C-alpha cells in the first residue's frame, strides 16, 4: 500500500456545462490525508490495463489493437461508394480521457475506407441530456477534420423515424440511420447498472444514444428495470436495423483502465461474451463498495452528478449499492429505481413491495465540481448535500434540469470547510472521491486501510457465491 499518494483526478474541462476551471480552487485528491488505492492492489486478478502514457502512445496502441480485431470481422457487405454511419456515443469520450475512444473511431473509419473502397463515411455521435456535448468532443478530438466534415452530433429531440419491431413501433434519430450501413461503436463500461442490470448491456444504445425521446422514455418509465432491456434488443433485431447492421466495435474497459478493443459481426454473441466479462471485471469492486457502512462522498469530476466515477463505478451505482443490482432475483422498484427509490414513501401502493432507501452509508455528499445537465435534485433532497462555492451552486441553480437543487443543499465557501463540517455531523473519517482517477480510487487513509483489509474476503465471496449466481441468472454456465 502506497501511503498518502493520490491518483491524478480527471482534470476540469472548459464547457458550457461546467464552471470555468479557474474557479475550481482545490481537488479532493489534494486534501490532507487522502490516498490512492489501485484496483490492482485490491483485486490482483482484474486484468491490467494497456499502458497509455501519452496521446501518441494511445493512438499507436489503440489503432493497432483496433486493426487487429477488425481483421476478424466481415465488412464485405459494404460496397465501393456505399454510405456508412459509424454510430458513437458521448459516453465513450468520458472514459479514461477519451482519446482511446476517439482513436478507435478514427481507425474504424480508415479501415472501412481501406477495405471497402468508400470514403462516404459519417461519424454520428449520440448525446444524453447535454445536447451540445457531442460537438464538444468532435471539436476536441478534431473528428470533423478527420472525417472530412462528416462528423456530427445528434440529440434525442432531433428528427426521428419509426422502426417497426416485434413488440411495436419505436423511434430513432433519423440521422443515425441515414446511411446504407451502420457500424455500432460503443464501450462495455458498466455505467447505469440500475437500468441495464447487465442484461444486454451492449444493445442499450439502440434505445438511448441512437433513439428519440419516446424510446428512451419507454425504457425508463414504461417497463420494469429488467424487462426494459427487451426494447434495445427488439430495435436491434428489427428488419430495418438488421438490413443496415455491419458489425459492432467495443472499447473494452475495466475498473483498472482500458484493456482492449473487440469487434464482432453478431452483437448477440458479443453481448454474451461481455456479460460474463463485465460481471468478473466489475463484480468485486461493486461488492466491496457496497460493504462500506459510512462515508463522506466528494463529487469532483467533469460529468453530471450521477455519472461521476470512482474505481470505474458511477456515483449513482453507489447510491444503490445497498442492493445487489447484479442479482436479478431482487425485484426492486420498477421505472427508474434510483429516482423512485429516493422519493419518500407517500403511498400505500408501495406497501409490501421492496423499496430500499438510498444507500444509508452516505452520510454526506459534497459537490466540489460537476457538470450541469441531468435531473439530480433528488440526490440533494435525500442526502445531506454541501455545494462548494458560489459558481458551482449557481451552475446547478441555473440549469433547467436542476432548478431547485440548491433549495435542498447548503453552499460552503471551500472544499476544506465543507469536509470539516461533514466530518463533524457525520462523525466518520471515511472519505471517497468520485473524481475519475484512472485505475483506482482516491480515499481517506482510514477508508484505504478498511478497503485493503476487506478486499480478500469480498473477492472470495464474489468468486464462490455471487458470480455463480449472477451467471446462472443470465443463463450462462
Amino acid at each position, binding site marked *: 500500500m502506497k501511503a498518502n499518494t493520490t491518483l491524478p483526478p480527471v482534470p476540469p474541462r472548459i464547457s458550457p456545462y461546467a464552471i470555468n476551471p479557474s474557479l475550481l480552487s482545490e481537488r479532493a485528491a489534494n486534501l490532507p490525508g487522502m490516498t490512492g488505492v489501485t484496483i490492482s492492489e485490491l483485486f490482483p486478478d482484474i486484468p491490467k490495463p494497456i499502458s497509455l502514457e501519452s496521446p501518441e502512445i494511445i493512438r499507436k496502441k489503440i489503432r493497432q489493437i483496433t486493426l487487429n480485431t477488425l481483421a476478424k470481422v466481415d465488412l464485405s457487405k459494404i460496397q465501393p461508394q456505399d454510405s456508412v454511419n459509424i454510430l458513437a456515443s458521448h459516453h465513450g469520450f468520458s472514459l479514461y480521457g477519451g482519446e482511446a475512444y476517439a482513436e478507435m473511431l478514427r481507425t474504424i473509419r480508415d479501415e472501412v475506407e481501406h477495405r471497402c473502397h468508400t470514403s462516404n463515411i459519417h461519424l454520428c455521435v449520440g448525446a444524453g*441530456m*447535454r*445536447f451540445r456535448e457531442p460537438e464538444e468532443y468532435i471539436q476536441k478530438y478534431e473528428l470533423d477534420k478527420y472525417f472530412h466534415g462528416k462528423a456530427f452530433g445528434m*440529440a*434525442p*429531440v*432531433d*428528427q*426521428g423515424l*419509426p422502426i417497426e419491431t*416485434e*413488440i*411495436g*413501433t*419505436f*423511434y430513432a434519430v433519423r440521422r443515425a440511420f441515414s446511411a446504407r450501413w451502420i457500424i455500432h461503436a460503443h464501450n462495455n463500461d458498466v455505467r447505469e447498472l440500475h437500468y441495464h442490470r447487465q*442484461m*444486454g448491456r451492449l444493445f442499450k444504445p439502440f434505445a438511448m444514444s441512437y433513439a*428519440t*425521446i*419516446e*424510446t*428512451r*422514455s*419507454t425504457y425508463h*418509465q*414504461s*417497463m*420494469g*428495470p*429488467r*424487462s426494459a*432491456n*427487451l426494447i434495445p*434488443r427488439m430495435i436491434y433485431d428489427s428488419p430495418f436495423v438488421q438490413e443496415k447492421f455491419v458489425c459492432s466495435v467495443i472499447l473494452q474497459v475495466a475498473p483498472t483502465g482500458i484493456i482492449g478493443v473487440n469487434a464482432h459481426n453478431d452483437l448477440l454473441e458479443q453481448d454474451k461474451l461481455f456479460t460474463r466479462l463485465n460481471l468478473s471485471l466489475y463484480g468485486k469492486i461493486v461488492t466491496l463498495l457496497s460493504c462500506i457502512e459510512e462515508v463522506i462522498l466528494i463529487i469532483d469530476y467533469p460529468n453530471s452528478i450521477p455519472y461521476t466515477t470512482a474505481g470505474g463505478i458511477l456515483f449513482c451505482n453507489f447510491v444503490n449499492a445497498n442492493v445487489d443490482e447484479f442479482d*436479478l432475483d431482487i*425485484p426492486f*422498484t*420498477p*421505472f*427508474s429505481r434510483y*429516482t*423512485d427509490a429516493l*422519493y419518500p414513501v*407517500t*403511498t400505500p*401502493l*408501495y406497501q*409490501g*413491495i421492496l423499496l430500499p432507501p438510498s444507500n444509508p452509508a452516505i452520510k454526506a455528499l459534497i459537490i466540489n465540481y460537476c457538470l450541469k445537465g*441531468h*435531473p439530480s*435534485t*433528488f440526490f440533494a433532497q435525500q442526502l445531506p448535500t454541501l455545494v462548494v462555492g458560489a459558481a458551482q451552486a449557481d451552475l446547478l441553480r441555473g440549469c*433547467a*434540469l*436542476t*432548478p*431547485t437543487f440548491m433549495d435542498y443543499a447548503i453552499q460552503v465557501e471551500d472544499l476544506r470547510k465543507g469536509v470539516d463540517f461533514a466530518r463533524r455531523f457525520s462523525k466518520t473519517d471515511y472519505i471517497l472521491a468520485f473524481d475519475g482517477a484512472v485505475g483506482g480510487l482516491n480515499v481517506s487513509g482510514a477508508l484505504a486501510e478498511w478497503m485493503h483489509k476487506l478486499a480478500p474476503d469480498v473477492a472470495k465471496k464474489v468468486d464462490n457465491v455471487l458470480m455463480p449466481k449472477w451467471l446462472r441468472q443470465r*443463463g450462462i454456465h
Partner: protein
Amino acid sequence: MVRIVTQFAVVDRQKCTGCKTCVQICPVTAIKLEEEEGKPRALIDEKYCQACMICMTRCPEIAITMNLRSSPLKIGTEVSQASSGEVAAICRKAHMYPEQIVCYCHRIQAKEVAAAILSGAKTPEQVARMTGARTGCGILCITAVIRLLRATGLEIERAPGYQWYGNTVSIWDLPDEVMQKYDKEYYLLRDRKDLDEIFPGGGHQ
C-alpha cells in the same frame, strides 16, 4: 407545485436562418416563423417560453440566448381544483400512482398531469404549458404524459413537429406470446407481477 420561471429565450434575428429547428422541437410550441424583410425568422412567444433551453442547445446557428424576465412566470396546475376521484382514476388507468414523480427535473407528479388534463389539456404540449412537465431534460417524461392522456380516452397521434412521434408500448401492452418468448432473458413476467402489485387497481388499458 408552482414553478417559477425567471428567463425566456430570445432569437438573434441577424443569425437566424429560418431553418425551423427550434419550431420543430419546442415542447410548449412557443416558437413560430415570421417573415422579416422577405426572409423567415424564428420568433419566440415570451408568455409561453419556460426556459428549458432545448431550442438554444439545438440551434445550428447558436442564435438563441436566454434573457431575464422582467417579472417571473408562474407555472403549475392546482390539483385541489380537480376531482380527486377522477384524478385517481386517470392515474390508475395509466398504471401510475398519483404521487409518482413523472417529470424528474421539475418533480411534477402524475396527479398534476391528470389535473391538467381534466382542466382541458389534450396534448403533451398543452400539458407542458400547464404543468411544466417536458420542459427540463425534454426526454424522460413523454411516455408518462402520453399514457395519462390516453387513459382519458384521448387519441394521441403526432406532435406538430419533432417533439414526439407517437405512442409506444408499455409492459401492460405486451402480448402474452411475447411475454412467454422473452421472459427467460428479460424477466418480463416477474416485472409485470411486481408492477401489478404496485398498481393493484390497474388493469389493462
